[in-house]
């Protein structure tokens, strides 16, 4: 399988506090990689390093390398273009102070797309993929921040899909979404896997079991184990801590 992302000896510190302690692994193209682990294990930090949004957090130091298609992400001059290649969905919905339509059209517009007909197609496609189209198709001009929490999170997903990313990072996307909608979005993710690589950070281990081709288990900034999901959730993962975590013995 072709490597989409190669992470090598990645270390991150917030001030003097370590967040990642030399993490190394590869992410294959067109796979869903589940990343599980308790709080403070460095999952979100890892995603922020990959799309370079960690740069907005002051007093952080990053060592090691992250390569996208073999190119070190820090050597890419067009950081805005890089972020368009790597979509990000944050745990809690962040409604931009724009209409529903403009929320989804925001990223394509920043990329230079201006034709309304093209934007209309993208907006409809992304809202359908995020299982939101039927609920908002008659009020696309309404303010996105006025939607319910679950709808806003789906709007966030639609927004992340709008720039057709090569990699989609989902950071606990279902935290504010009801179970039925979560299942609908999970179905969408299974089909999106054919078009993009998906990194799924989740606290719901069963969600990783349902969706991920491979799963990585992180604990206190260390990568404890990464393997096929079947192995991680079997009776015999390589590490006892993995077994204990996925079976609810701690965390």
């Amino acid at each position: 399988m072709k490597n989409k992302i190669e992470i090598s000896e990645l270390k991150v510190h917030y001030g003097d506090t370590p967040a990642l302690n030399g993490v190394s692994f590869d992410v294959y193209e067109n796979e869903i990689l589940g990343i599980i682990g308790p709080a403070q294990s460095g999952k979100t930090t890892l995603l922020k390093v990959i799309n370079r949004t960690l740069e907005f957090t002051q007093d952080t130091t990053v060592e090691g390398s992250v390569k996208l298609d073999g190119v070190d992400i820090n050597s890419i001059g067009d950081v805005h273009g890089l972020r368009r290649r790597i979509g990000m969905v944050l745990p809690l919905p962040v409604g931009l102070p724009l209409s529903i339509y403009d929320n989804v059209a925001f990223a394509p517009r920043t990329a230079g797309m201006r034709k309304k007909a093209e934007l209309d197609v993208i907006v409809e496609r992304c809202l359908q993929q995020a299982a939101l189209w039927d609920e908002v198709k008659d009020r696309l001009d309404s303010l996105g921040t006025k939607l319910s929490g679950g709808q806003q999170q789906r709007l966030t997903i639609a927004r992340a899909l709008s720039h057709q990313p090569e990699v989609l990072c989902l950071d606990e996307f279902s935290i504010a979404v009801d179970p039925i909608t979560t299942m609908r979005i999970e179905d969408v993710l299974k089909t999106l896997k054919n078009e993009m690589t998906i990194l799924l950070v989740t606290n719901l281990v069963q969600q990783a079991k349902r969706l991920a081709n491979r799963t990585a288990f992180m604990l206190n900034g260390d990568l404890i184990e990464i393997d096929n999901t079947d192995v991680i959730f079997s009776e015999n993962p390589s590490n006892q801590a993995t077994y204990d975590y996925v079976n609810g013995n701690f965390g």
Partner: protein
Amino acid sequence: MKRAELIFQSIALITLAVAFILFWNFGKGMSFVENGLLSDTTATDSYAVLQENLNRMIPVLLGSILLSVAIAFYLEEYLVRTNWKYQIIARQIVILASIPSLLYGLLGLYFFVFQSEKGSFFTHALTVVLLVMPRTIQSTQRAIRGVDISIREAAFALGAKKWRVIVDHVFPHAFSAIMAGIFTVISRALAVAALIIVVYVWTKHTLQSGDTFYIPGSAIVLLLSSLLSSVFSSFLEAKTNCT
């Protein structure tokens, strides 16, 4: 509607009405406050001085406010707080903003009234700038810092450039808080201007003629405008806290 809110809004409306009546009457040159309370030509002169100065100073005031907002955005969005440039500028702003408005007023009074008969445009403008800019920059900085980091992260994660993030997201989110700060600063500036007029009239006329102290109508107008500005500021602040 809560009783306190009702009382607050009533005060605001009454203040607005009184301020409007006063401005309207002065505009017509009738000056009923002068006639009713003062019946003195000096007070009418003070209004003429006020009108003349307002005409000259409003552009300076607006320019100072716009420049202050721009400086605050530059400091918060384009400079890192540990940067030496940020440290130097921020420290000067804190020092200037911590000086009581009254001292700026006395400074203005000294240059406007005692050093020259009418005061020069430069000294007028300098006082307005010193009075308005540091506090506007500070309040705007606070408003910008109040915008949740997740808003910026969400926009940056979509590949937006800094300028787009500021214009499309940070500014709209901070707008109410910025305006609240601006109205507070205007309120203080008007109150200080009223003080200057009162002292001007007392020193130039009352003390010389031996008449009883009185409050010039133009100072009353300024004080009412100051109160009105405070009311607007409170409304905007309440709105900011609600959103």
